């Protein structure tokens, strides 16, 4: 379990925490209001039972033991009754403690689950731009550190704070009743304890900060050197690496030693101050009891001594919890931050349905017919029209920029007819992938229009638009599950036969069957046990099984060597047949037979035409293709 980091808490943190805390509590009370009320009541009962028990000490000594010592014939019956009464109190206290602890398990785990689920659900709805602009590690830490810290705060800090504050109040009251002077002595020592805690805690936090910094530096070095270990070997650089590591390691040792030292001292220091407080009470109390001036009896002193112990504990607990709560609030703030992110907007209303043609008319149907239609509901007329999906995609003077005023695409005009294969070539950063991002609306155009079968893509429901477009990316991204599961990702209802057929199409069947469990082989860690080429074959199979009317292949075969690519070319050709396909590739063999090749440079289409046309033009394409510089 991640341990909380000690940090210096600033005023601003506390102000932010207060806002977040309000929101968090509003959230918690909405779902768990009743439970919290019950917990509150139970804590009070348990604290009262405890205090009642400590007070019994006084009764025991003053009312039973002392008189019995003096009487000749001791009668133990009243004592037994008193003890049974206290035992009953204790039982109620324990029952209450058990109850609230149990409730808190359900509340904290329930809240954690609720948070986690809502977070995930919301995250899935966020636009691609969110993931492109946030570090994935940061997003991950919402789920790991932040939620977990919050759960710990809910399950431990909240009940402890309630418990501690109530204990402090009730013990303080009891102590006042027992003896005012002794209470003053106790409070004085609490003051000393708080000062020591603040000072030691401050130094500790300072060194913990230094320790965090040194850990980060050392871990950075470890990560870098381990990843480059083979290079280190090849360059015989071992000794230099060791020297550098030693420097960072020693630095960490210094700060870790100091940080731990202060943290270690804090506990015994408080414990011994507590002991001194205890001793003082014993001495002062003893003297007072002896003088008989303040009405302090031996029994009262005994009870007071117990209270003294139980008073110091919650005080140091509260001071420890405060820091932790501020940290948990920072995490909660980050989680709320993600929850507040605008989800992807989808104003589209045109949907995609299966259809069959009947006398030249399209009729919507349930079963898969291989014919799709755009279902277009016109709200003004109240009518529904069906347009056959054919795969015409038109870019009408499209401009696009990720960041305002930094255009990445300029005046893109492009027509893809039904079943055509359109290729994009150009340098890294020329805008190839951006164009495909616009087709499936991962991003929206800044200006101009994109039409799919003459329908503006803005009007098409995103889900419909995306399921009409199969996509194979260079980074394949497989999911934990079996090989078959991963292929089936394209069509959840696919039968085993369909899965095998898709794998055959992508030429993946051969290697899958050689895997230890064939199609049932578990993949984990993004298919870490497969080669990059094999992963791409699976991604192709995954797209094939979806049987989409149009395809986007973004460097889909880049990691497959040319010989293997040639082998799967048949499958790829079969996959592309009859579908409008957009291909991004840097390998000639992949794009040469395209109907039209677009050469992109700096966000503009600078040349277009078939392979032969472009070669004869002797322009940029010719230059890229031959590796020769054209003499201007």
């Amino acid at each position: 379990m991640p341990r909380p980091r000690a940090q210096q808490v600033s005023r601003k943190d506390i102000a932010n925490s207060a806002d977040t805390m309000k929101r968090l509590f509003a959230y918690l009370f909405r779902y768990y209001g009743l439970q919290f009320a019950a917990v509150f009541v139970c804590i009070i009962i348990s604290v009262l039972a405890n205090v009642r028990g400590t007070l019994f000490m006084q009764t025991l000594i003053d009312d039973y033991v002392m008189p019995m010592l003096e009487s000749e014939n001791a009668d133990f019956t009243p004592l037994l009754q008193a003890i049974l009464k206290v035992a009953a109190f204790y039982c109620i206290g324990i029952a209450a403690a058990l109850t609230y602890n149990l409730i808190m398990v359900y509340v904290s785990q329930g809240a954690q689950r609720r948070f986690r689920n809502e977070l995930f659900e919301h995250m899935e709805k966020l636009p691609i731009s969110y993931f492109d602009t946030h570090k994935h590690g940061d997003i991950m830490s919402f789920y790991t550190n932040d939620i977990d810290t919050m759960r710990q705060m809910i399950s431990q800090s909240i009940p402890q704070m309630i418990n501690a504050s109530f204990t402090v109040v009730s013990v303080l009251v009891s102590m006042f009743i027992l003896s005012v002077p002794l209470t003053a002595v106790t409070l004085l020592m609490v003051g000393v304890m708080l000062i020591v805690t603040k000072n030691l805690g401050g130094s500790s936090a300072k060194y913990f900060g230094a320790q965090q910094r040194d850990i980060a530096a050392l871990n950075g070095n470890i990560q870098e050197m381990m990843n480059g270990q083979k290079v280190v070997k090849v360059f015989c650089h071992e000794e230099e690496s060791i020297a550098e590591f030693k420097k960072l390691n020693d630095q960490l040792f210094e700060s870790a030693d100091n940080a731990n030292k202060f943290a270690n001292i804090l506990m015994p220091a408080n414990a011994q101050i507590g002991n001194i407080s205890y001793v003082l009470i014993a001495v002062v109390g003893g003297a007072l009891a002896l003088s008989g001036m303040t009405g302090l009896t031996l029994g009262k002193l005994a009870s007071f001594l117990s209270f003294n112990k139980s008073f110091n504990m919650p005080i140091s607990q509260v001071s420890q919890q405060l820091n932790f709560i501020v940290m948990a609030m920072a995490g909660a703030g980050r989680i709320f931050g993600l929850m507040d992110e605008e989800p992807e907007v989808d104003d589209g209303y045109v949907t995609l349905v299966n259809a069959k043609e009947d006398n030249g008319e399209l009729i919507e149907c349930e079963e898969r017919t291989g014919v799709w239609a755009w279902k277009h509901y016109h709200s003004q007329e109240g009518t529904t029209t069906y347009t056959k999906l054919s795969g015409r995609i038109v870019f009408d003077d499209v401009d696009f920029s990720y960041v305002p005023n930094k255009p990445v695409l300029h005046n893109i005009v492009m027509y893809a007819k039904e079943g055509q294969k359109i290729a994009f070539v150009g340098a890294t950063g020329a805008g190839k992938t951006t164009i495909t991002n616009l087709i499936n609306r991962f991003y929206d155009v800044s200006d101009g229009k994109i039409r799919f079968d003459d329908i503006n893509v803005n009007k098409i429901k995103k889900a419909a638009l995306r399921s009409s477009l199969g996509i194979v990316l260079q980074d394949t991204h497989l999911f934990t599950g079996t090989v078959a599961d991963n292929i089936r990702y394209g069509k959840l209802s696919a039968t085993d036969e369909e899965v095998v057929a898709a794998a055959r199409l992508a030429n993946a069947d051969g290697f899958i069957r050689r895997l230890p469990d064939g199609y049932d082989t578990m993949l984990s860690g993004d298919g870490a046990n497969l080669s990059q080429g094999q992963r791409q074959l699976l991604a192709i199979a995954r797209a094939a099984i979806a049987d989409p009317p149009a395809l986007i292949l973004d460097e889909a075969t880049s990691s497959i060597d040319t010989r293997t690519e040639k082998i799967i070319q048949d499958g790829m050709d079969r996959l592309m047949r009859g579908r409008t396909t957009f291909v991004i590739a840097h390998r000639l063999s992949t794009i040469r037979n395209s109907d039209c090749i677009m050469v992109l440079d700096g966000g503009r289409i600078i040349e277009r035409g078939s392979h032969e046309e472009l070669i004869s033009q002797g322009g940029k394409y010719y230059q890229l293709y031959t590796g020769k510089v054209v003499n201007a």
Partner: protein
Amino acid sequence: MTCMEQCSDSYGGTMILRLLQEVKEYKKDVFLTPVFMLLEVAMEMIIPLLMASIIDDGVEAGNLRHIFMIGGCMVVCAGIGLFAGIEGGRYGARASTGFARNLRQSMFENIQTFSFANIDKFSQSSLITRLTTDVTNLQNSFQMILRIGTRAPASLIVAMLMSFYISPQLAQIYLWAALILGVVVAFITVRTKKIFEQVFKKYDDLNASVQENVSGIRVVKAFVREDYETQKFHAASNNLYRMFIRAERMLVGMMPIMQGMVYACILLISWFGAKLIVSDHLTTGELMSLLTYCMNILMSLMMLSMIFVMITMSIASAERITEVLSERPTITNPDDPVMEVKDGSVDFSHVDFAYGTHAGGDVLSDIDLHIRSGEMIGIIGSTGSSKTSLVNLISHLYDVKSGSVSVGGIDVKKYDLETLRNEVSVVLQNNVLFSGTIYDNLRWGDKNATDEECRQACKWACADEFIEQFPDGYDTFIEQGGTNVSGGQRQRLCIARALLKKPKVLILDDSTSAVDTTTDAKIRKAFREAIAGTTKIIIAQRVSSVMDADRIIVMDDGKIDGIGTHEELLAANEIYRDVYESQTGAGSGDFDQPGGD
């Protein structure tokens, strides 16, 4: 307890001994920490005893002087306790952080001796975890054992002895209470530990699935699988919720049981104590000390169970660390090493090779190959045809299974490793740059290279053009992993770095894949002219990168399928012809621009 069994068996024993060797210069701290902890416990235990004396001989006897005197003693005790606590904390911190430092240092140093086979065995990410998380776990446990591990049992035993000293009859109650609580706590700990292990596994799985969704969000969205993923996640999350509830419900009992035990002890002591006081076998003060010891005993038991959990959790870390510490490199310097490489000739005679850890067949079989000094050799073949394995044998990064590899006429096994690797320079396929300036990176090749030499190497590697465009030129800072330069730029810097070694054999393992064809050709031209005497071995995917080599080797499935010039192979080798045709005759199949300059 299971720990006892684990620690006492011989494997656990050697593991602990191996780890304890790393204490080194902190022996004093390791020794003193428990000593001071014991002193602190002793002081804490004396205080209640003195307390009894204040009550009985002071208050009840009406002796004010006695109260002050004993009170003074108590303050002194608390003061010594404070001192001991602080010293214990100080030494404990030093012992544990020093131990961690030594562990890290020894692991790191041992890793530096690893051969490629050793590195492959562990994998990089697992080495990182071992050096970071595992060491931290062990550091925390070590400190815990030194401090709480002495404190808790000592406190338990002393408090028990004191109780017996005060009143053997009443102390029996504690003995029973401790026994019962011990059994219950042990039972709960063992039960929950099992559940928690499963829970943490599930928890990791859940986080892994979030990770997948974050990095694969384009796939999720492209396939419109948001709802499907959300459902899947909810199912996993609900499952985890149920498991956590099951585990924590059991733990919830701990505190109330402990509390109940304390209450039960208080009541029993009150009852029997009152009887003993009345019958004059016990004093009021003693009764109060007994009640203080009660808390000590039961708290110590709880502490012990905590340590137990902590130790069992860190056993896995300890094992992983010991594995690294006791790993022996598979390749070491020979006894009487050859310190000079005569020339750049390379000879494979009937070499078979297999990666030791993997079962399955040979990766290379019966390779017989002779390369003359100064030759330029191209190697081509599909993925998995063992091109990389072949060249890695030349600089003795792996050991052959049978046959031999010689450089300059002498078996690579006989060379001093550093000598050999300085003369055989490899640009690895997955090459990395390190954080530092471009100069810093280049000087990995030669520590003493002048600026002029660095620039010259960059010129040959066609890296000068883009470096000079950087505002800081050769002083440009390269981020960790070289993320602020493009793939093609990185590859050229790596080539320049290898050139600075002025090797007799230069090996490029697919090192220009992200460099455009024109620049690629320029680099090869520089090789031919500037380092004519160096043997050059170039692995490539592109035919154009190897076409003009003196000889081209076609690899297929761990065997040499053909050797010859471009023309010879085109005429006689089917695989080569296939590859060539798939990339067409115009000389290039690649549209990547000058590495994204």
